[in-house]
């Protein structure tokens, strides 16, 4: 099920990127796409009833851990996504300063 949610978010993000003409909305679409992707990565390692992959004194003898690697990967992907978003917003500010609008259609160049 988790995968379906992830794919729907991915597609929503892609749809937003293709249809939106506002710079901020494009950045939001990019974020939705990234969230969908991150959810997809997590879903790869997850299974029903799996434990968090942490060894404690209460861990049973044959623990049923979920795959920890996708979780590590998603952490990296999130950080990168934040960096890209910050840069995108900084560029959006520059675009607004230069053109006085955030709408791509009103800028007169592409």
């Amino acid at each position, binding site marked *: 099920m988790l995968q379906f949610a992830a794919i729907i978010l991915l597609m929503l993000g892609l749809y937003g990127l293709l249809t939106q003409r506002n710079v901020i909305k494009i950045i939001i679409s990019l974020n939705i796409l990234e969230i969908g992707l991150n959810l997809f990565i997590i879903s790869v390692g997850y299974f029903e009833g799996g434990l968090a992959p942490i060894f404690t004194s209460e861990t049973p003898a044959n623990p049923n851990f979920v795959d920890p690697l996708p979780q590590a*990967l998603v952490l990296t992907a999130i950080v990168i996504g934040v960096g890209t978003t910050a840069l995108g917003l900084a560029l959006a500010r520059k675009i607004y300063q230069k053109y006085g609008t955030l709408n*791509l259609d009103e800028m007169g160049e592409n």
Partner: protein
Amino acid sequence: MSAILLIAVPLLAAFISILVKKVSPYLLLLVSLFALVYPFFMDMSDVIIGGFDSPIGINLVVNKFALTSLIAVNGLFFLVVAVNIAQYKKLSSILLVALAGLNGLLLTGDLFNLFVFIEISGIAAYLITTTNKKPLQTFNYLVAGTVGSSLYLLGLIILYNMSGTLNMADMATFVEGNGMYTLFPFLLMFIGLGVEAKLLPFNSWVKGILGHSNNLSGAMIASVYATAIALVFGKLLAGVFQIEGTLALIIALVLGITILAGEAMAYASTKAREILLYSSIAQAGIVILLFTVGLGAWATFFAIANGVSKFILFGVVNRLTEEVGSDEMDQLKGSFVNNKLIGVSFTVAALSILGLPLFFGFVVKMNSLIGFFEPDFVSNLPGGNFIFPIIILVASVIEGVYFVKLLTKLWYKDSDVKVNFTPLFKYVVVVLAVALIVFGLFQGEVEELVASLINPGGVFIWN
């Protein structure tokens, strides 16, 4: 001494350079010189990170291919920085991050790690292109690049789910037995990397970025980044991807159209920078084509020769544009009459891309084409052994037309265009042009270098 220093030292220097802003340009010069010299002295053995042996841990692959590409990319990087740093002191920290990212790209043997380095070098590239003062175009580049790397990651995760590994060599063995199932993830990864490598349907950002490039960003993106990305993409296509069936057809179409459309658009352009940027799209297509069909060793040198030429071409044209205020060919008419040395070097670089004898470009182009007709060559792309050599030759003819057009304009006799080049820039450009001629004359030595990239079984070494 371990190869990891090539990534660690620039990153450390990037942090330090934020603290001590005044010395950061010198730090950048020092570190990029270090990155150029260090590959000659490092141990030729793979690096294991964190004590986990590959395929479980991340590893850095150090071999002849990595060494060749490191020397070429870091050499070009150092020259770009040395020539331009006085003008762009503020970018020192970003350029150090870019250096770390590029070295990581060339060294890593892990597919997820590759994604991280693509993003690091990508973010540095977006920041470098902000110096164009065209925020909208940079924004387009950012969106295209981010979507591309997201698609790459999506494909990679699907592959991970199937194979349980992220290591390139391990992945290659898995793919060999399961070619059919890997078609979709490979297509996603191909599109993702195609964005950065400027392949045709995914390269809408190129015109905005290189068409408005300045001294730094033009040479950086068209020469250094293009070489690095082409080599990495090629490494994956030659080593990891299993190209067959539908995927082969799609890749063949994308590459064929990239080459021909790139050349056609260059032919139709009247602006000097646009001619060069469309030409570099076509060149990227040719390099990736050569990697795909298994002529990886020559493709490596094709990419390097192209990178050196593009450094000269973009460097000179951007400097002319800065002084003249326009990059229309008619405005630049006769720029070389007063700058004969620069003009000759520019001509050498253009003719080398074109593939005229005497120059490095000829050696690589001819040998790549000969590779198609070797008796044991089997094309894995539809179209067999003939269509792609024909495409490359047709592309060369079109290149010939527009480069000669460009050169005759720039050498036009009566002109009052006066452009001053700094002595350092002149020196670097002339040295690179001489290098193109030297490599072109000593064909035997180049062939030996290329042969060292091929193992006794005749297979291109990539891991």
